[in-house]
């Protein structure tokens, strides 16, 4: 079954063709990096306008790269839940039209479920049940994944997402945008022990996260040093900050996995591309007899392939969306059902 996956929930206009939920025939991503750098972040109206300009070209290129024609498409999957409403709307309008005009099934997907499936695409042997940490600029959650498409939320961020903290700290330190890659790079030459930043909620009994206080602590440290005319070792600040975020993410996810007695961990989302996060997870997982899985780097950030893979799974369960499919900017993943 050839599924066209469409993703426009934030700043990437993406489309992909995936065969049977496993084989990626093409995955095209048009980033809005030029606009993001200009505005220092995502501006919803600007992003929605760009999606409208690009969506058709991105879908056409996905078909061309896969060597397929429109008529070969068996179903259309689209991110319709969780994201910027004006952005979700463009992809969903395109998906509904393709589904209607080609007379093939349509399935609306929750954005976070897409990220969960990015790991299944990269690692078909990812076992169930497992604990999944999904972490990006828009969310940070720990989920217990009992089986395919069956999620239980264990913890989430009470304020900023981890990726959002990376973005804000990077912006404040003048390192640029997006924060993840620039901090990852700056931290390479820094000392992780140079600064003692807090590890918020690391010992809390639940699995929730909080990154707002850590972000403020980094910003205050920076301001104090500027006020005292001290030297500003940006790599050290970046490395110490990154270490604090990674420590919390690793510790809580491992704890969740041990509590639920699973043998496998899945780490997904944009932040899962972070090199320090991957290294520390690997070490901690081995120490605790767990196996950790990461998506390939190209599937960490938003893409259409993960949406197609999630859509395939939902379709196989007999779920369909109607042509009245609407977008929902914020809705819990556990509530996800394909029929609406």
């Amino acid at each position, binding site marked *: 079954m050839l599924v066209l996956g469409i993703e426009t929930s934030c700043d990437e206009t993406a489309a992909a063709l995936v065969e049977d939920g496993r084989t990626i025939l093409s995955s095209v991503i048009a980033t809005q990096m030029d606009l993001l750098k200009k505005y220092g972040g995502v501006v919803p109206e600007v992003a*929605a306008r760009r999606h*409208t300009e690009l969506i058709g070209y991105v879908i*056409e290129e996905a078909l061309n790269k896969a060597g397929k024609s429109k008529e070969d498409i068996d179903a259309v999957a689209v991110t319709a839940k969780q994201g910027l409403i004006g952005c979700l*709307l463009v992809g969903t309008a395109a998906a*509904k039209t*393709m589904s209607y005009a080609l007379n093939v099934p349509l399935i609306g997907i929750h954005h976070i479920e897409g990220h969960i499936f990015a790991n299944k695409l990269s690692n078909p042997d990812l076992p169930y049940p497992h604990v999944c940490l999904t972490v990006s600029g828009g969310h940070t959650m720990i989920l217990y994944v009992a089986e395919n498409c069956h999620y239980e939320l264990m913890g989430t961020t009470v304020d900023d997402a981890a990726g959002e903290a990376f973005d804000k700290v990077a912006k404040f330190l003048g390192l640029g945008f997006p924060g993840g890659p620039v901090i990852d790079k700056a931290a390479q030459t820094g000392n992780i022990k140079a600064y003692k930043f807090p590890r918020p909620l690391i010992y809390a009994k639940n699995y929730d996260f909080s990154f707002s206080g850590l972000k403020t602590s980094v910003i205050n440290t920076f301001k104090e040093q500027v006020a005292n005319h001290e030297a500003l070792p940006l790599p050290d600040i970046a490395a110490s900050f990154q270490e604090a975020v990674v420590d919390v993410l690793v510790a809580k996810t491992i704890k969740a996995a041990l509590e639920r007695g699973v043998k496998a961990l899945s780490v997904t989302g944009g932040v899962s591309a972070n090199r320090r996060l991957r290294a520390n997870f690997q070490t901690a997982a081995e120490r605790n007899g767990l196996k950790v899985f990461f998506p390939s780097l190209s599937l960490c950030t938003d893409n259409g392939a993960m949406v197609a893979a999630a859509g395939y799974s939902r379709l196989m369960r007999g779920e369909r969306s109607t042509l009245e499919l*609407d977008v929902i900017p914020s809705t819990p993943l556990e509530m996800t059902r394909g029929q609406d």
Partner: protein
Amino acid sequence: MKVLGLDTSHYLNSVGIIEGERLLAGVTSSARSDSLVKIIANIDFAVKRAGLTLAQIDGFGVGLGPGSWTGIRVGVTVGKMLAYATGKPICGVSTLEALAREAFNANTLICSIIGGGTKDMIYAALYRQLNGAVKQEGDYYVGSPSGLAHLIKENVVIVGQEADFYAEYIKSLNIPDIKITEIKTIPQGSTIASLAQARLERGDKDNALALTPLYLKESAARIYQEVK
């Protein structure tokens, strides 16, 4: 030639199918925040009502706006993907021109107005009828109703969903020696189809994938960026 036209620019969702001068089917529903929900169902309803299948439609027309930014993005995206998926041609049409077309019999100046979301912001354009069609005079207007009134110096027919309101307003300014009439109407999918048909019959069409809405106004962020 059977042409399907759609417009979602003005909190309305209008679809019409025409063949030559004949209206085969038309459906209009209000769409405050559910343009996306209803649009495909409305298209499907119109196609079936006309006794056709989507494959029998020879071309498409889509209202590019101006109007509700979210609304026009839905319409333009649906329009371009319909044309792409069916392989049929499409023409983008200014929604203001579609409104002016409702007054094509007028011997006077025609002024199309679409509300811009706030009381002091409107989108407008001036037209004059010429050989059964309408021809735009000058640029599009974006601004306050009072600013628009200053551009009107002769007899005029105001066209739009709130034409009566704007006609009253301009009358209240007591501009000497002019007569103001109004046609209260909405942008119709069938009118969009008719304007598109005229171009399609000449072999003229737009690049479907490149179609973009007629925003007429930059987003606040871009204006801020340019000022900086």
